[in-house]
């Protein structure tokens, strides 16, 4: 497929690796922010191809992994109601809540359906006027415009049986938290290419200035990531601090204006709890009061839960790049994709699941 296959070309990959070996003179710690990038790095063994001086740590960019326990519990409550068709992206079904998960709700007879686009949820609402259709609106800035559009469309059509359980998160506040921590060891970042496709990269310029760290906006194929790593290492070795754009075929500095406009119209910024990390100020999106009629939390009056995460799950440190999944005592033993203790083991973009899939032989035996 065009724009995919050529970015997996082995010969170019080898050339980029060779260039990286020539370039690097000192140890550097780099973080790829997005879980999709983590997955590619593990799948193609890029972490093992790069020079030993380069340490890749994995960022908090898996929305499934950071969706707070309370929201999962609320989703379970709502999905268990007989009048509800609960509609979700597939990854969310196995994420453990404090006592159950959506998959078990479905197995017990709950009407839980998996879709790949919120447009399908709207169709379900139109086709089932006697039922309440609730869409689980999670994701980063990449996903927010699509979810916003679904609410906007429902409002425009006057659909009375559609609502959304919203738990959107924003990338820059999490990176700010990480950079402000005294434990931070990350010296350069690969910024998330699809988040930046929507938002542009001005916010990362502000972070680069404030914390004196370079960013390279990167794509998702092996060649994209090798090139992004190479550009970052060049900046670090030369002492430059800039925001560069490796993924220019999709990203420009201003981002996608129509997508930003619909997000703005439907959502507003709010404080948000991140699973494993805790509350991060101004790090989430919720529905604006004008769209309260589409807010599942209000309609179903789901009480505030506060739930404890399993003590042995070290996902907080994994999501902040302080520990690797293999440092977790539960990894591959009590915690596996079929029976995850923590969310990073659920999604294929979670760091723990990526390690389990591609590094298990080397790490657990």
């Amino acid at each position, binding site marked *: 497929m065009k724009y995919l296959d050529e970015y997996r070309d082995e010969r170019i990959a080898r050339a980029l690796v060779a260039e990286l070996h020539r370039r690097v003179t000192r140890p550097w710690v780099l973080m790829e922010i997005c879980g999709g990038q983590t997955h590619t790095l593990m799948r193609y063994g890029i972490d093992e191809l790069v020079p030993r001086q380069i340490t890749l740590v994995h960022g908090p960019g898996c929305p499934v992994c950071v969706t707070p326990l309370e929201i999962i519990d609320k989703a379970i409550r709502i999905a268990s109601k007989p009048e509800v068709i609960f509609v979700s992206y597939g990854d969310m079904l196995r994420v453990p809540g404090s006592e159950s998960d959506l998959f078990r709700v479905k197995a017990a007879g709950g009407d839980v359906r998996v879709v790949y686009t919120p447009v399908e949820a709207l169709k379900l609402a139109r086709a089932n006027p006697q039922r309440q259709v609730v869409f689980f609106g999670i994701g980063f800035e990449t*996903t927010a415009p699509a979810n916003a559009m679904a609410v906007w469309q429902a409002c425009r059509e006057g659909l009375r049986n559609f609502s959304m359980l919203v738990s959107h998160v924003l990338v820059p506040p999490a990176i700010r938290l990480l950079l402000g921590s005294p434990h931070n060891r990350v010296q350069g970042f690969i910024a998330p290419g699809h988040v930046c496709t929507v938002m542009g990269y001005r916010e990362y310029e502000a972070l680069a200035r404030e914390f004196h760290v370079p960013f390279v906006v990167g794509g998702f194929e092996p060649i994209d990531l090798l090139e992004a790593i190479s550009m970052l290492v060049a900046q670090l070795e030369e002492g430059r601090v800039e925001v560069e754009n490796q993924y220019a075929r999709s990203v420009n500095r201003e981002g996608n204006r129509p997508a930003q406009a619909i997000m703005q119209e439907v959502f507003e910024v709010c404080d948000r709890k991140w699973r494993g990390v805790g509350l991060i100020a101004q790090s989430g999106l919720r529905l604006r009061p004008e769209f309260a009629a589409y807010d599942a939390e209000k309609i179903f009056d789901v009480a505030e839960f506060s739930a404890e995460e399993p003590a042995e799950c070290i996902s907080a440190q994994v999501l902040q790049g302080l520990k690797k999944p293999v440092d977790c005592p539960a990894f591959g033993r009590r915690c596996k994709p079929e029976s995850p203790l923590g969310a990073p083991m659920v999604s294929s973009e979670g760091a723990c699941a990526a390690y389990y899939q591609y590094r298990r032989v080397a790490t657990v035996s």
Partner: protein
Amino acid sequence: MCLAVPGRILTIEETKDSRVGRVQFGGITRPVQLDFVPEARVGDYVVTHVGFAISRVDAEEAERTFRILRGMGLLEGEGPESRGESNEQDRAA
């Protein structure tokens, strides 16, 4: 979750409040909302996430950077004899 893939627009259908394309991803074709890429035309590639196009692939930008990369690959590799990728490139272009 932020996975988004490039596909080629085969047709576009405009209704009063939306713009939907049939977009080809390798062997399969899917409907894709084009509301966020008003500039996209039939034949363009769009990067698509959860059923919505979030960007139109900038073909010139892709070609420019890729020419540099391919040049590097050839310098590093066994010589100019291609393994077929460049043919496929030309066909797809």
